[in-house]
């Protein structure tokens, strides 16, 4: 019978994937808080998890939800400013930094699908589970998101 690995091993096995996903999803500055909250939530729920669960998809789903919380709190805390800086803030550590900025600006479902696919490397089925939608809907969100990114690229 399969048993859950000790949490220390789970942390070591998935910390890189979660970190990479979160730097893309919320940027380097907020990635650490999201990372801590992701693994805190994972550790709370961990003993109730079935031992045959897909642990990687599970922890990236939690990371995705923590990223959503970050977007929401940014929206709440956003202060309107009169002089909007003309240059968008890019994450210097991120290759294609500008591109990931555009991904972050997509509507939630599309953003989630693109992030989980390309920063999280999840399958369509795993993305569907993470977004709580059908696999067909996940594919559609991904397709729509990519279409929008390409359109932005053409006009840029």
């Amino acid at each position: 019978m399969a048993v859950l690995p000790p949490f220390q091993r789970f942390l070591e096995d998935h910390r890189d994937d979660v970190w990479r996903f979160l730097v893309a999803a919320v940027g380097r500055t907020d990635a650490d808080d999201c990372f801590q909250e992701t693994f805190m939530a994972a550790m709370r729920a961990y003993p109730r998890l079935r031992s045959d669960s897909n642990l990687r998809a599970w922890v990236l789903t939690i990371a995705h939800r923590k990223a959503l919380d970050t977007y929401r709190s940014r929206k709440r805390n956003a202060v309107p400013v009169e002089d909007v800086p003309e240059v968008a803030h890019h994450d210097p550590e991120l290759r294609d930094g500008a591109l990931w900025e555009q991904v972050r600006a997509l509507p939630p479902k599309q953003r989630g699908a693109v992030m989980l696919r390309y920063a999280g490397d999840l399958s369509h089925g795993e993305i569907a589970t993470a977004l709580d939608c059908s696999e067909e809907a996940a594919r559609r969100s991904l397709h729509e998101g990519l279409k929008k990114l390409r359109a932005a690229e053409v006009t840029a």
Partner: protein
Amino acid sequence: MTTPKRPPLDRDAARAAAARFAILAEPDVAYAIVDTPVGKVVAANTKRGLASLSYADHHGGIDRVLEALSAGISPRVLEAPARLDEVRRELDEYFEGHRRSFDLAIDLSLIKTPFSKRLLQATARIPFGETRTYRDMAAAAGNAAAVRAAGNALGHNPIPIVVPCHRVLRTGGNIGGYTGGLDRKVKLLATEGITLGRHDR
């Protein structure tokens, strides 16, 4: 652009974030690999006390010890050396000859049978520098006839040194067995001033 490329990974940053997590989190089982004069041990604490001091090269190795803690106590197992400072300090004092008994609380959650539990509790009370026989310990655990079972249970002691199963010898003074190999038993007994004649080994 065809599709976004997977972002690069700053592995050091990921490792640092995981290390911060291990410091802040409150696991059910905190462990550290501790060096002692009788080799590396996997020291593990629960909220109730010391649950493991298994020799890292016995019991199937470190991974197997962690799996036993995960399955037997809780899978919330994290490496958190700072939570084992007290254990490390008392072990150092013991091996330096400055400590004759341990003040650490012990947690026998890994032990599932009442006989083994009673046996190890009785073993924990054998004073420094004294020895008992397997027969003594079987009797202390409530079944004088269960000598072989007593030897077995002591051989699976998850908290050697602190639960001093090295102080249990065969009737007649023969050294018997040991959970971490006989060389360790001889060394631990010598630490406490007990030397066995050559015919006793």
